[in-house]
């Protein structure tokens, strides 16, 4: 290791290390906003931005709990299926004249139980979460179809659907996004300012060491899977009210979008590294690029390609820059580096 540089520059370096990727993503969000504004005068209007952000409410909500899971080096591919299952359940309960508050409560119970099953299979049997949640991805989606078949339930009361596509009174902020922002702040505090949150990084960085340090790894992971199920249930309720439609195939394939956002946000797939800020910024980046390209009639396919390239670039570019720096240092050896 090199000798420690003087304190001020070390602080700057540490800040850069801490904020590097997140800062880049946030910068890209502004670039995307600017590009959108240049592409169309209608882009930077409150109503367009509001419509555009509402469009990624569900992905944003699920990205919060996915961030925590990926930090402990686990993954949940079943979130979109839990969303579909919860949406179907909400529809079926409402159609069976269950009062709406009770129906919503039962929907959350179902989401929590779905997450609990994932968590038990991972923590009790020691199965890899990738394999488990591929299985429950099929299982939960199948249960959604078993509940609702190919029917759609649409006649939800206006008081509730207004929650889905309404605005916070006096603003242009969609209610689901306001809800998301509150939860994002709570998640940030949980992850970055509590012992529980620091424990997640410890588990992700080295599970064995974390266990020896007295962390109850299994219980923490179980909690996170249940949380993931609950967030998917919330996303299911939001989705159902926003589109005023409960269908078994709601949000099919969303899991990849959620994971793409979390990874693009700088959360390491190997665990132990990442932040809520990065994940949230990445959700906004993908959503804004999506909106900007849609407004100028650039087709969906380009957006798909851009999402993929962003995802690959988010890991590839820092890797290549790092190698370049190493190579340059090797070519111009500093006096103290020769031993």
């Amino acid at each position, binding site marked *: 290791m090199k000798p420690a540089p003087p304190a001020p520059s070390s602080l700057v370096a540490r800040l850069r290390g801490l904020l590097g990727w997140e800062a880049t993503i946030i910068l890209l969000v502004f670039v995307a906003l600017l590009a959108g504004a240049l592409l169309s005068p209608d882009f930077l209007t409150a109503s367009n931005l509001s419509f555009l952000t509402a469009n990624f409410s569900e992905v944003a909500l699920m990205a919060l709990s996915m961030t925590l899971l990926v930090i402990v080096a686990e993954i949940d591919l079943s979130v979109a299926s839990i969303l579909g299952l919860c949406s179907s359940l909400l529809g079926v309960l409402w159609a069976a004249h269950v009062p709406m508050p009770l129906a919503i409560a039962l929907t959350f119970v179902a989401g929590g139980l779905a997450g609990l099953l994932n968590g038990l299979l991972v923590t009790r049997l020691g199965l890899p979460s*990738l394999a488990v949640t591929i299985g429950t991805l099929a299982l939960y989606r199948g249960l959604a179809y078993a509940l609702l078949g190919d029917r759609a339930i649409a006649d939800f009361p206006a008081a509730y659907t207004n929650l889905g596509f309404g605005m916070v009174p006096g603003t242009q902020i969609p209610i689901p996004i306001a809800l998301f922002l509150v939860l994002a702040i709570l998640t940030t505090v949980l992850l970055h300012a509590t012992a529980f949150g620091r424990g997640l990084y410890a588990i992700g960085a080295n599970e064995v060491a974390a266990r020896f340090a007295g962390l109850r790894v299994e219980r923490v992971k179980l909690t996170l899977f249940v949380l993931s199920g609950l967030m998917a249930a919330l996303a299911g309720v939001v989705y159902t009210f926003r589109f005023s439609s409960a269908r078994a195939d709601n949000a099919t394939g969303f899991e990849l979008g959620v994971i793409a956002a979390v990874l693009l946000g700088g959360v390491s797939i190997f665990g132990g590294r990442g932040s809520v800020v990065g994940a949230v910024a990445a959700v906004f980046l993908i959503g804004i690029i999506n909106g900007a390209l849609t407004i100028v009639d650039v087709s969906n*396919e380009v957006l798909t390609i851009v999402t993929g390239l962003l995802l690959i670039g988010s890991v*590839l570019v820092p890797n290549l820059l790092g190698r370049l720096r190493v190579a340059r240092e090797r070519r111009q050896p500093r006096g103290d580096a020769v031993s």
Partner: protein
Amino acid sequence: MTQLAEASAPAPGLLARLLARREVSLVLILLVVLLGTAAINPRFLGAGSVRDLLLNVTIIALVVVGQTIVLLMKHVDLSVSSTVGLTAFLSGALFIAHPGLPIPLALLFGVVLGAALGAVNGLLVAYGRVPALVATLGTLYVFRGITYAVVHGGQINAANLPPAFLSFATGSVLGVPNLVLLVLVVMILFGIYLGSYRGGREYYAVGSNAEAATLAGINVTRRTLTGFVISGAIAGLAGVLYLARYGTVDASAGTGLELQVIAAAVVGGVSINGGVGTLFGAGIGALLLGVMGSALVTLRAPSFYQQAIQGALLLLAISIDIVVSRRTARRLGQRRTP
């Protein structure tokens, strides 16, 4: 790892050794499902329905070959579904442009195109040091986006395809459909390669312990690249067979296939932690999932329940596997300590 342990442990009885092998228990489960369903509905084992079953399994079983090689190295290839979609459409477009194209040339086209797409993954993972999950999730989007851009709302129908190609798809040799034969040949060739050749064994070494493999003189980077190229090439071949099997291909062809393929490999005993598994097991895994699917249809399970049942079966299979393998490991441990 497993192979080493088996070789060094004192030989237990033949029956015990057979039962310890994952593939044997899978074949037993397969037989139970086959015979049980046939007992309830004898038409399940009729020539026509067996033929349909095999054809339905072929695409998955083929893609599983490449996926297994990647999984052995402790990587994963999520982009196979997009590769299948892109090659299926482009080979269809090629047939429309050149109706007289010989079929082997079309298959070669699929293999080469797939290999090129696989090389993108391989370069990202091996040289760019991008984790395979991230790289192939990215290319899953990119390849699918390219497909949408190329297809542009159109689709290819059986009516556009030359009759020779369609009759190749429906043809058979001695009652075995051509497509099934082709997939069997690929499986057997790669099975021999993985089991008995130095190059093949290196995939196990890389996945078991990459550092040890490097010390043993294996070029891990190049091996990784080759593995992804093979996975892409096989997915490309599967794309052409997809076109042959279904005739109709649009931009969404093959969507979601990657999860079925990984499920089949995992049921077949290929560990996603690398280094463990055989192509024979993976093939049986694909067959088992296919048989269960069509058994549910035959037994008139409501179609809406089928996906749920398949998901539950997958969970059951991997749960049993981990419990059994843990018990085996404990027993081996006891035997070693006197």
